[in-house]
């Protein structure tokens, strides 16, 4: 890409030798990958693989122990404000101001993002109607279901049309209709010039449908990275599904049959 409208570097996300430690526990170990412009990058991994720690390092919730995270060339630690202006984030859990209504919450986010009233209202209306939030838009968030809270978080992340979307298990709790809408939104989103999406999930089917490239994270280490075809080739998995490829590359298929058989007597 010739121009870099979102920052000094056209690459939406560059992670280099990222290490995250919680006390003595090593959560992410010298991780390196990038999300290219126009790309949906899927970060796959089992529970505890380090996906959320990686994402929290990008959005400023966790300070990297070593290494760097750059968003369009801005350092996520030293230039956190510039980074946060360019990122839309959907957390894994529904972290919201429970005493506010979705409208009040989105109004606060729009204010912090310095959006004008016309733009903010038009976008909130489009997304709220698409996600069928009309019945809950004025209810306190505390009274909403997990799925509805997730929709509010997704709208909040999209409200300022950020050049980088960072989504931590965004489809959890969503109903099938909203999942379909979300997939459409993401596909159209990266079609816009220069944007990127980082998408963490452990649902292989979703990753297979949505992601241009995937990175397989296992116990904090990037085991493999590439398109599905490239990963199949690496795992010598023929035309296997991403799930098969994932299990082989992370060696989680070892002992799988034994574990299943052991359950038969239970």
């Amino acid at each position, binding site marked *: 890409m010739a121009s870099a409208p979102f920052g000094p570097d056209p690459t939406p996300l560059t992670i280099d030798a990222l290490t995250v430690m919680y006390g003595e526990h090593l959560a992410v170990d010298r991780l390196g990958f990038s999300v290219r412009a126009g790309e949906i990058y899927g970060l796959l991994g089992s529970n505890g693989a380090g996906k959320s720690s990686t994402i929290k390092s990008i959005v400023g919730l966790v300070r990297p122990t070593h290494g760097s995270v750059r968003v369009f060339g801005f350092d996520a630690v030293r230039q956190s404000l510039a980074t946060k202006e360019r990122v839309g984030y959907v957390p894994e859990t529904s972290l919201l101001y429970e005493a506010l209504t979705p409208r009040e919450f989105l*109004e606060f986010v729009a204010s912090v993002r310095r959006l004008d009233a016309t733009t903010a209202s038009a976008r909130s209306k489009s997304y709220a109607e698409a996600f069928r939030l009309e*019945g809950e838009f004025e209810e*306190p968030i505390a009274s909403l279901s997990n799925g509805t809270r997730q929709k509010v978080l997704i709208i909040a992340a999209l409200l300022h049309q950020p050049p980088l979307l960072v989504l931590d298990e965004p489809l959890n709790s969503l109903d099938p209709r909203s999942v379909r809408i979300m997939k459409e939104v993401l596909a159209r989103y990266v079609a816009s010039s220069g944007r990127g999406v980082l998408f963490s999930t452990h649902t292989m089917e979703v990753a297979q449908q949505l992601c241009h490239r995937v990175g397989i994270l296992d116990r904090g280490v990037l085991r493999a990275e590439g398109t599905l075809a490239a990963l199949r080739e690496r795992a010598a998995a023929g035309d296997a599904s991403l799930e098969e490829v994932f299990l082989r590359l992370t060696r989680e298929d070892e002992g799988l049959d034994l574990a299943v058989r052991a359950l038969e007597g239970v």
Partner: protein
Amino acid sequence: MGWRDAWWISGVAFTELSLQAIYAFRQGNLLPAGPARELAAKARRRVIQSKIVVAVVLGLLAAGACLLLEISARVVGTPFFGVFVSPEVFQTCVLTALLAVEMAFLWWTGLQVIPTYLASGVLPVLEPLPIDDATLGRAAGLLYLRLFDLPAAMVLITTPLFVAWTLGLAAGLAVVPGTVAAVGFALALALITGRFFVRRVQGSRGGGGRTALRWAYLVLWVLPAFAMFGLVVAAPGFLAIVGRTVELGPSAARDGLVAIFPFTFAALPALANAGPGVFGLDRAGTTILVVAAAVYVGIAAWSILWLMVSVRRLGLAPPLVPAEAPAARYTLAPERPAVAVLTKDLRIASRMPGYAFLVIFPILDAVAIGLFTFVAGPGSTGAFDLALAAVSTAALLATFFGPAFFAIEVLAYSYGRTLPLPDRFIILGKVALVALIYLLAGGIVLGLTLPRVFLPGLFAAFIAAELPAVLAASLLELGILFRRARAKGLPIVNLYSGGYYAVFVAIPGAVVAGLPLVAYRILAAGSTSVAIAAMGLIALAELVACAPFSLGVRGGRDA
């Protein structure tokens, strides 16, 4: 399973509640690194520390009241609004105020805890386990009592002890039913009002009209607690009323008085020491008092039993159920970031009685003291001093706002940290809210006292001179709390989980807000104008010193 199992289960649930209250991980905060056992122990310790702080405050209240009881013999020669009262009437009035304040304080602290208790989900986790209904109910009740154990024990033990020490053993024993009733009522009121507000206030839909209705509900809720505070503020007037009523001899007014809680119980120590003749009570009056006391003790006992049943139901019921909604309004009206923080805090406070209390209290205090100036003659020094006292109280109360508004920020703290919102905007938004409340309180006093106090310019100057000190105090407190949060990732969620730090930062805040007021007191004897000028200069110097400390906070959002 029996009470022993229920006690053990409530202990496990209490640890979980403490962990959630301290680390707020349900609000998305990260648990610090370390073994779970140590984190749980630390959380329990911190909650216990906060309970100790609340208990100590209650103990000091009892000690203060008993210091007043000590001097009761000396007040006989002092007229209150022209009425001479006997030592026994004075003692009864002091104990009435003490029991009222103890109940109000326990009630108010309970309301701080209930939202955390309901949000914790500790009871729904227990429900599917094979625990019989009776044990689960007992465990829920015991868990609720554990929230209040130290403060309640302090009231139940120290009040009779101090009274026995100052007025004798019989008086000490006579005050026991009053303390039991005060504690029982406080615990039940906390649950009833907590449940009401979780449904009607926290669960209220958005929109301008409903916001106004929520604030109206909140004012209604504050009124009883405020009335008890007013009782202390208006103590001389109260003493005069009681003195006059007793002087009247047998009358409906006196019979009514002895039937009103907590006067009924507060009168018992004097009656135990001096007999019914002390209030000139006839047989009817004595009967009314005894029946009223028995009824109140019965209600208190029933309240405790009701608690044991209702706590479980309340903990399990989904607190809020979305109603059928009219057509949504999607219009958003973004504001400047600092204003957005202020608006957000007000909206959150309007659904959280604990925070709303802090916003409403100084305003009601200003109204009450402003009206109280009408007791003094027009243009009198007394009225002017009272008006200044009202503003001074508002300024000192403002020192509690910093920790409270910081606590609002802790809600969804993790999400807030991912937004491009520098800490200085958050601090400025909260300081603006503190200033707004102070100025509103000052303005109310000014408006109410305008016809009585003929020095509006001077009075306005006093309000303006103190304003920089109020700003400086809030800035200092918020600066300390944000630095602490940055360094330790410490969330301060409510009075029980963060009482220790709330008190810690309120002390320097009170010093900063109080210094110009002290300077005024010292210099006012010479010249009021000079005193106000000096006060303003000190306040400005404090603001200049505190602002860089707070607005220079650097961290995740600013770096």
